[in-house]
């Protein structure tokens, strides 16, 4: 899809196409198919989410409180703004406004960077979080052994690759028998639906959903967030590539398909995040 050094009259037309329209159609259809494949890729994770949420709803109501809704909302707004700037960039490319195109690409890039930055802050915050740390730091507590390091590892590996490994000094501070988990707003409800049953259950179990169950929530969350973060990273690379092309004047002729395709890709990334936000942060 990049530049072809053709001797043809139209420098944008690759030699194996007859018309520029055919080329544009191919390019656009290819992008849509790629996005379909990408959505199916994420679809597998959403499917895992649905199955585990239906089977263990209490784990999800329990787990979601440890996500920071404010940061999540902020990130959602940031991404929606970046969607706007990308759409504007497409418009600018079509109208051959090189300055506005450059501005919009830079803005989109910065917004995408902000998103990743906020994600990083949130994960570092979650590292302090009782749930993750409790299971991490109590290796020989009577919590089932398998709950141990995975969360933390997935937090650092999936979430923010450059995070330092978890420090150990808090070990002594934690009594493995006592959960450091803050009381849940609604409490673990199990399969109960009626409010009184819910309350009764919450009282019975106090706040102690088995952390072994909670790990499922965070496994799914971090896998999704990690993959989505990777997708955002690729989007940022694509934006840089577009900026380079813009400086070279590649869009001065109004041949804007590359901007359009990147924008499509970006919108899908934003939509996937919005679903994640709804399904992970706003559970009640």
């Amino acid at each position, binding site marked *: 899809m990049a530049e072809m050094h053709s*001797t043809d009259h139209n420098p944008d037309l690759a*030699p194996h196409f007859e018309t520029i329209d055919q080329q544009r*159609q191919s390019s656009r259809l290819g992008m849509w198919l790629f996005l379909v*494949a990408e959505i*199916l890729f994420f*679809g597998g994770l959403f499917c*895992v989410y649905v199955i585990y949420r239906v089977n263990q709803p209490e784990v999800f109501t329990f787990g979601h409180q440890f996500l920071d809704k404010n940061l999540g909302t902020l990130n959602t707004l940031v991404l929606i703004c970046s969607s706007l700037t990308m759409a504007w960039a497409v418009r600018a490319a079509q109208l051959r406004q090189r300055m506005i195109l450059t501005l919009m690409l830079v803005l989109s890039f910065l917004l995408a960077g902000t998103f990743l930055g906020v994600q990083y802050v949130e994960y570092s915050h979650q590292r302090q979080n009782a749930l993750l740390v409790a299971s991490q730091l109590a290796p020989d507590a009577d919590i089932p052994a*398998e709950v141990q390091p995975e969360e933390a590892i997935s937090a650092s590996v999936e979430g923010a690759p450059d995070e330092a490994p978890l420090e150990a000094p808090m070990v002594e501070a934690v009594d493995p028998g006592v959960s450091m988990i803050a009381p849940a707003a609604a409490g673990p409800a199990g399969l109960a639906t009626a409010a009184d049953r819910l309350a009764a259950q919450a009282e019975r179990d106090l706040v102690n959903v088995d952390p072994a169950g909670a790990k499922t929530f965070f496994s799914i969350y971090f*896998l999704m967030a990690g993959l989505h973060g990777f997708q955002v990273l690729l989007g940022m690379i694509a934006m840089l590539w577009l900026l380079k092309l813009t400086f070279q004047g590649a869009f001065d002729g109004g041949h804007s398909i590359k901007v359009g395709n990147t924008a499509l890709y970006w919108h899908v990334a934003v939509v996937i995040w919005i679903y994640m936000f709804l399904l992970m942060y706003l559970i009640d």
Partner: protein
Amino acid sequence: MAEGHSAVVTPMSEGASGDNYLTTGKGVLSWLFTLDHKRISVMYMVAILSSFLFGGMFALLVRTEMLTPGATIMTADTFNKMFTLHGVVMIFLFIIPGIPAALGNFVLPLMLGAKDVALPRLNLLGFWCWLTGATVCMVSIVVGAVDTGWTFYAPYSTTTGTAVVSMTLGALILGFSSILTGLNFIVTIHTMRPEGMTWFKMPLFVWSLYSTAIIQVLATPVLGITLLLLIAERTLGVGIFDPALGGDPVLYQHFFWFYSHPAVYIMILPAMGIISELVSVFSGKHIFGYKFIAWSSVAIAVFSFLGWGHHMFTSGQSPLVNVIFSALVFGVAIPSSLMVFNWLATMYKGAISLAAPMLYVLAFLFLFSIGGLTGLFLGALSTNIHLHDTYFAVAHFHYLMFGGTVIAFLGGIHYWWPKMFGRMYSEFWARISAALIFVGFNLTFFTLFVMGSHGMPRRYYNYLEVFKPYQQASTVGSYLLGLGFMIMAYYLAQSLLKGEKAPENPWGGASLEWETASPPISRNFEHEMIGLDPYDINALELSSDSGSYIRKDPSSILLTQAGGE
């Protein structure tokens, strides 16, 4: 990348000088970085046939081990690795990319009268993905192989000490190669058809590639995420599939088969397309029931997504779900048998030529029917309980994958060989080898049907004395198969070196790939083509001086009729 560009992009001056895609551009780099679909296809062909050689050697080792009960030539652990590697190499490296990437890549743009696929860079990227994935797989074979079976079922795959992570990573990367091929083909078929070629004037091979491509794009990402989850399970312990971590191993099976059931149609659909082309040409007749075959291939693609659950009849699925999946999987039999009857009807009262490609067609019809009908035994709930995980399932699968796909692939190779390399092969040896392969195959796998129905389980290292004659017959059959392939390798190599020069159209096919030189020039055609009926065999006649079939009205196929010589 510069060399590759210039090889393709520089306006070509060949044709008159006798240059073709094989001779334009020299050196390894002009191949590795080419954007020419024909060169990429040849690279795929070499790569895929090498994988076939590997996978075949693993198979022969497995069969040799089964000569006697107990240890024959290897330990039980090695045996587990051997059949796993046979499966992984044959499925992910050979048969899934096989027909689409190697033959489809070559033929599709030619059949459309186009200069290339729509997205040549993605095509090359797909090949590089294949190479990377294959390298990762080979490395994992060296560092410890895998003993899970090619299905990587959890929880064994999450606990075994073998190289599951790198092997599944390899399969994941190969999956991207497959997605890119499929994506490219869909776009190509949508946007690169010539004037006059409406959807129902496309050759049926194109229809089958289109249906295949849909499955590749829609199903492969699910395999990707499944394998990624499996990798995460092993490296991070995320607890999605491993019951010890609160996961659900049957969920893995659902995920895996959601891809891998459609994947068997990724394997068989293009084979069906090849058969549709060959049966018409070698029967000297128009294809019978064109629209039925075209729609059947789409129907099979649709059905393919609805049958995954029949792999889990004995995994504790609810009986209701089992009944539904059983009914759905029977549905695939309808379009499949429609095709078989249409092929038979095409042959009916035709002037059948028994050239090597047609021998493969006949073998296909025979073996595919056996494979398909035994599939009904496995799809039926009651018989499935008895036959599940026995040699019967193995035999059924091989009748479809080898008897169906590989046989059609071989037919396709022999059919398009003169076009690809501009040389004829020894027809005599081709027939001998086809006969050997047919006999060897049946000896190898029909015995497996018998043993399976008597209860011999698959993947067992040891067996009862009563199975010994069957096991040994099967092993002898596999050696015959190997011999058949050795003969084929010999005469094909000989053809490349000093084969007789192939005419433009040695068989009398009416689709567009026969309207260019053998081998084709880099930009494929001298003139722009239009799409006519691709099965109008009667529009051609054999020219006695060139040995080639030529159009009775040569200008009828050209876009600008005045633009002829």
